[in-house]
């Protein structure tokens, strides 16, 4: 999109709240004539005489002096405004008719309809935000859950760039040491201990890795997490879906194969959206329609990040569970295994579901987590056993959760597990989260360069090459904050070391 400089001198107007009927609507004007234009139709105090960051009550009248609406006008005099220009925000009653009337009036007075993103573009061009902040604004506008709103807010306030800048500074200090060694090797300077340098790189790597991993979460928060509920026919998948959503969404019956389509529902837990996909049961399909359903199921599963596998503790044999999991679980997939219909047999011994006895099962014990399953499985006197190591990693690390979907037993615990499955160990809910693909790419490349740094140091490659990889990492991190050159190295050196013959 290209804006000419002429365009940038215009005053622009647009509805700032969503279209549609609401209690109030806010119309925003930005540009050097924003206040004059509003003043032309506003009856109340003379806006041109008012201080910045003040709110004024009054009416807006059309050319025939008819009152269009009673409004509150918020004044922001540039440069202390969102766009850095004069900004007026008019809060009116939220009817489409009133809003249209007001915008038309402002246009008659000399404003121009804003193009998409133009307010933010102006803020960016006026130096009110950096590139990563501007990108966050776009996210903020599109955010549809509390978490994604927080994420975008955090990025917009500069939290993200600050973090990267902090990392970059640490790396720059490191680079300075290496550069010092390279440029002043002939002189009597002290060099930093290599192990310390390595520790520092590893520490930075940990940060970057956390940010990279948070990308999954960041993306999940932005777009919702694709979550597939799968299991054999009549394992209770649809009942579980209904229990989670608290409503009768899927067609529930006890005839196997009732659900023929995948059904998408959105479940919101603590601000994170789970796009729940109920699937047709996995079995050898007996009719054509069902075969299509099964195929669809497999496709859906392969696209999802989280798999909820449900089995019926009465009907399903341990061997069958193992077979299903081996078929369904893909690498990089979170897995929750749900033992359903616990109400029918509260004394189920999970040992039967695993080949316990090889001794390898002990390894899994450290992962044992009982949660609050006592209410259904209270008499289970041992911890959940865990699969042996010949299962794929995702299965051996899976959470096993006993529930009764029909009786809505242990559903709260399941929800908690769902929420936790999104948060990896490194990422705390309040910490910085990456949700932008450009940032993700840059972080990944920085991380690769840092891997090269460590690799080079380990294999005895000389420090000029190590320095090159550090510089690459610096450059990639700089891409996030929009910094182009990296030549503060020398300033860093001179401040700290006595050099020079």
């Amino acid at each position, binding site marked *: 999109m290209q804006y000419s400089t002429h365009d940038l001198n215009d005053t622009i107007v647009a509805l700032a709240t969503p279209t549609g009927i609401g209690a109030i609507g806010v119309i925003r004007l930005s540009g050097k004539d924003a206040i004059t234009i509003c003043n032309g139709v506003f009856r109340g105090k003379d806006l041109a005489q008012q201080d910045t960051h003040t709110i004024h009550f009054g009416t807006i009248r059309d050319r025939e002096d008819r009152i269009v609406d009673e409004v509150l006008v918020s004044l922001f005099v540039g440069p202390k405004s969102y766009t850095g220009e004069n900004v007026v925000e008019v809060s009116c009653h939220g009817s489409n008719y009133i809003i249209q009337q007001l915008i038309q009036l402002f246009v008659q007075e000399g404003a121009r309809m804003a193009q998409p993103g133009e307010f933010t573009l102006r803020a960016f061009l006026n130096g009110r935000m950096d590139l990563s902040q501007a990108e966050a604004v776009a996210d903020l506008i599109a955010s549809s859950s509390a978490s994604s709103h927080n994420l975008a807010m955090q990025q917009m306030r500069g939290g993200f760039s600050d973090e990267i800048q902090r990392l970059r500074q640490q790396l720059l200090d490191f680079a300075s040491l290496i550069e010092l060694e390279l440029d002043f*090797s002939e002189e009597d300077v002290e060099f930093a201990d290599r192990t310390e340098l390595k520790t520092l790189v590893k520490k930075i790597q940990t940060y970057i890795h956390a940010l990279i991993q948070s990308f999954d979460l960041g993306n999940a928060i932005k777009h919702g997490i694709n979550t597939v509920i799968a299991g054999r026919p009549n394992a209770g998948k649809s009942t579980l879906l209904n229990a989670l959503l608290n409503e009768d969404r899927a067609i529930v019956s006890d005839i196997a194969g009732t659900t023929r389509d995948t059904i998408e529902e959105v479940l919101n837990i603590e601000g994170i959206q789970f796009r729940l996909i109920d699937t047709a049961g996995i079995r050898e399909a007996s009719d054509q329609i069902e075969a299509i359903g099964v195929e669809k199921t497999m496709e859906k599963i392969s696209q999802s990040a989280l798999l909820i596998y449900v089995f019926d503790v009465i009907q399903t044999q341990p061997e069958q569970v193992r077979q299903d999991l081996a078929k369904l679980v893909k690498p990089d997939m979170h897995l929750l295994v749900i033992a359903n219909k616990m109400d029918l047999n509260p004394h189920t011994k999970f040992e039967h579901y695993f080949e316990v006895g090889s001794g390898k099962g002990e390894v899994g014990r450290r992962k044992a987590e009982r949660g609050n399953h006592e209410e259904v499985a209270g008499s289970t006197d041992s911890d959940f056993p865990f699969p042996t190591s010949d299962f794929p990693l995702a299965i051996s690390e899976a959470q096993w959760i006993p529930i009764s979907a029909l009786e809505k037993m242990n559903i709260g615990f399941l929800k908690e597990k769902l929420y936790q499955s999104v948060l990896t160990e490194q990422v705390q809910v309040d910490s910085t989260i990456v949700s932008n693909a450009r940032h993700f790419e840059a972080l990944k490349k920085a991380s690769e360069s840092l891997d090269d740094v460590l690799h080079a140091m380990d294999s005895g490659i000389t420090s*000029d090459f190590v320095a*090159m990889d550090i510089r690459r990492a610096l450059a990639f991190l700089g891409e996030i904050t929009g910094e182009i050159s990296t030549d503060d190295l020398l300033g860093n050196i001179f401040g700290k070391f006595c050099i*020079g013959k």
Partner: protein
Amino acid sequence: MFPTYDVIVVGGGHAGCEAAVAAANMGSKVLLATMNMNTIAQMSCNPAMGGVAKGQIVREIDALGGYSGIVTDHTMVQFRMLNKSKGPAMWSPRAQSDRMLFAGKWREMLEAHPNVDFWQEMVNGIVVKDGRVCGVRTGIGLEIESKSVVLTNGTFLNGLIHIGDKNFGGGRAGERAATGITEQLLELGFESGRMKTGTPPRVDGRTLDWDRMETQPGDENPSKFSYTDTPKLNKQIPCHITYTSKEVHETLKTGFERSPLFNGRIRGLGPRYCPSIEDKIDRFSDRDRHQLFVEPEGWNTCEIYVNGFSSSLPEEVQYKALRQVVGFENMKMFRPGYAIEYDFFPPTQLKVNLETRLVKNLFFAGQINGTTGYEEAACQGLMAGINAHLSVNEEEPFVLKRSEAYIGVLIDDLVNKGTKEPYRMFTSRAEYRILLRQDNADLRLTPLAHKLGMQGLDERLQRVEEKQAAAKAIKKFFEETSISPDDVNGFLEEKGTAPLKQKVKMHGVLLRPQINLAELRQAVPTIEQYLSPVEQEYVDLAEINMKYEGYIRKEEEMVAKMNRLESVRLTENFDYQQLVSLSSEAREKLSQLKPRTIGQASRISGVSPADISVLLVHMGR
């Protein structure tokens, strides 16, 4: 009395000499005007050429057809390849020169050039008509006509020498300052500044106790600077290393009150990386000793240069303190160290071809641009000489990219960022250090200079092509020839790396970090057999190309990325004032410096990444 010259070079230091021969070898008629022909190519400070990053520059000068490398090779008393333990990008040639021979050889080479005339007198002004330079004016009132002028005045413009509380006008110890030029340039609208530099005492080598110092010999197998057939060094003089001590520092401190550096008499800013001894003691008080390099001044003199002891303290304080240094107990001094302040012209007033924006065909090179160092000066002289010739002939300027040469980095930094302290080259200033090596300066630059029409490069271009072809052939040999476990396993185990299980290509063995080609060829007769007729220089290039291929490629990718910004052209008459969204500083700087590309704009100090984004958005990118 004089013809109309194509180029008049004012000043006969390192910048002036290179400017004169470069223009002359491009085909211009050149006049070198200097106050004293006996001080042509004086090494005013230490008697050494090269060093880290600087050695690379000398190699680049040589590759472009300049003479600094040749002169150094003919006159050195010691050669060391610094940083040999690091990667090839860091290998930096450095030589101790015989100061007198160095100056003599330069004068000899200049005098041998039919296109170079001399005039021995102070130039105190330039002649400007219609915004274009057309000659110089001398002290006795002569006007000499020319189509262009290169100013390389060094530390002479209103030079002021400080020793303790004494100060007097001078361009160098025992030589008078140059006056008139600064004042005239200011009238023409130039902006000037003041810088400071210093030099250590010279002492009598007959009075030093060498046994009490560490010896620093030259390389066993000394290399050289020039890609031409200059003589090899067979005899060398060592340098020595000694240290200051707490006592020395205490003595020096007694003179601080009378130090022009501390009592505010010196206003110019000196280089942080070449601090005086008093500065080091003051700023890094936690260190109880500093290293001193004791360097010979030549084959036939006992004069010694005390590198690391630059000072402007009163001479008796310098003397007393120096005699407390180990090995210097009976030292006799030839002359004290001093500081010198001089005028410079912030180089942001120059275009990328080193021509001033204000006066057409007027070029600046060397310390007048705020740099320090012979090598930095010499390479600017070379580029100014070439560009003066091109400008007179109305040809496109010759500009080196940051990815092509340290010279490119230096000039790009100067004209875009300017400098507040004397600018010295470091390898860290170059983004693409691995590409800018001392071993490949000829490959990078000789073809460019040859294409430009620089004389005397035909044979050298041939050699460049031969070198490239040889390196390619060696690489092919390594990639295609197999080596069996029996032939090499003994050697591999000795080097602590895994033995081979089956036949592999030699290339794979060479790539192991523990293996270098010099040892490998000794261990494997087939390799030695193949390489023995090949020149070592070619073998070295082949080894670097093979062993560091991955790194070289990575850096080339970064260059390609930068070149995308470099390829976005900005027109010279673009009106930045109308772009209200630029910061006011950026608007001012961009209007003033008129960058040729977005890449260049991004390196201008005061232009922020946000400003660059604004430009890119404006240009619809």
